[in-house]
């Protein structure tokens, strides 16, 4: 095994066929277990021994976590849907176009072939694209727990750094996204030093066109704090208005009250604030609508 320096500690492995079995396996390990889907964040964490569970419960055998389908006004995206599928799945491209817009910025192509939307949203890395897009789209997370299934709106789902409404032993099974229609517009962008790097600041927005103005504006930023952040003040400025130069400038000023970034080793808070304003301007200038 080579030098043996970046290897996971020994663990047992199961691939349950039902949610009931998955929960039972987790309980049998008395919580000393991790669920794995695509594993693109978990496997390196295991290799670096940031985590060392006794048991890995592979979600790949759970059919309930698969598939993308329209359920009335909502698009149900199974948690095991891979990042790359957001670029090819017609239902996602049509009804959750923000995911397709964000996907090219998520890591690198080979990671996108393997990583899953559910895994990304369950991990809730504050610098990650897809979790923030759940917030921008107003999605609901469907979670399986001891009491059965429940749904948690994105606004309540993200709680703190890597902390979500998912309790230990619970499983994110699907993302329910309000289906975008012909009146919606959206935009995604991020500012990163290199392609595929974590963004210094990123964000996405959804809105409906109502006459010349925007309605139901939702803007979510990432890499600006411990969780993805709604830009509620900027949204309020834009509500009912056309995104013209005056509205954009006003929204950019309002944005300062929406975020509270910290200084870190690479980027001072003041730079992140500046980049967030730049980013919001770009989002509003590039709003896309259905073809």
């Amino acid at each position, binding site marked *: *095994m*080579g030098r043996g320096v*970046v*290897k*996971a*500690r*020994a*663990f*047992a*492995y*199961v*691939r*349950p*066929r039902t949610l009931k*079995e998955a929960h039972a*396996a987790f309980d*049998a390990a008395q919580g000393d277990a991790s669920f*794995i889907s695509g*594993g*693109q964040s978990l*496997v*390196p964490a*295991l*290799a*670096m021994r940031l985590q060392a569970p*006794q*048991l*890995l419960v*592979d979600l*790949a055998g759970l059919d309930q976590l698969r598939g993308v389908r329209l359920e009335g006004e909502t698009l149900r995206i199974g948690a095991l849907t891979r990042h*790359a599928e957001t670029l090819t799945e017609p239902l996602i491209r049509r009804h959750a176009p923000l995911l397709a817009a964000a996907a*090219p910025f998520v*890591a*690198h*192509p*080979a*990671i996108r*072939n*393997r990583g899953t939307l559910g895994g990304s949203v369950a991990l809730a890395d504050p610098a990650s694209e897809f979790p923030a897009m759940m917030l921008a789209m107003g999605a609901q997370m469907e979670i399986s727990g001891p009491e059965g299934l429940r749904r948690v709106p994105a606004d309540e789902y993200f709680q703190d750094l890597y902390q979500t409404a998912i309790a230990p032993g619970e499983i994110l099974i699907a993302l329910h996204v309000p289906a975008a229609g012909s009146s919606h517009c959206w935009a995604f962008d991020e500012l990163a030093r290199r*392609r*595929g790097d974590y963004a210094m600041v990123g964000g996405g927005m959804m809105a409906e066109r109502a006459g010349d103005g925007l309605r139901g504006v939702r803007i979510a930023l990432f890499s600006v704090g411990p969780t993805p952040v709604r830009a509620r003040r900027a949204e309020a400025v834009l509500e009912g208005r056309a995104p013209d130069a005056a509205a954009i400038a006003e929204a950019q000023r309002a944005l300062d009250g929406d975020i509270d970034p910290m200084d870190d080793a690479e980027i001072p808070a003041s730079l992140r604030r500046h980049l967030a304003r730049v980013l919001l301007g770009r989002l509003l200038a590039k709003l896309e609508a259905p073809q």
Partner: protein
Amino acid sequence: MTMTAPGPVPLALTVNGSPLARMVAPRTTLADFLRTELELTATHVGCEMGACGACLVLLDGVPVHSCLVFAVQAEGQQVETVEGLVARGALARLQDAFHARNALQCGFCTPGMLVNAHALLERGGVPDREEIRDALSGNYCRCTGYEAIVDAIEAAARAERGEGGAR
């Protein structure tokens, strides 16, 4: 479903077209399984955390980092390594172009580059240089500065379409 111990468990999968069955410890990555158990050492292990791209293989036809997949997760799936791609001649044009353009120096990153380049060319057409760079954005090369690699992939794509060889 029964609780397994951390010791070896049965694994059945297809590697380079051949079905095979082995016992494997769950902690073994697909990369280590290929290299140590099957002695398929074209798959290189660099960073072991999905950053360098030297370990790319095709899993059910798409490039993935074999260091970020445990072998047990590949149960029932099709794995294709550089050895398999070479054996069926799928890399011939890329190999010619890499050679002609000196698109490698130490060669450590080359298998990963070839797997990604192969997947890119399988999409058909001649990708532009920006697309090639994007496709390789997860592949580190510390020798060449990438320019020759992008040249070689572009040349191979043109050769595929009969537009002349490496430039």
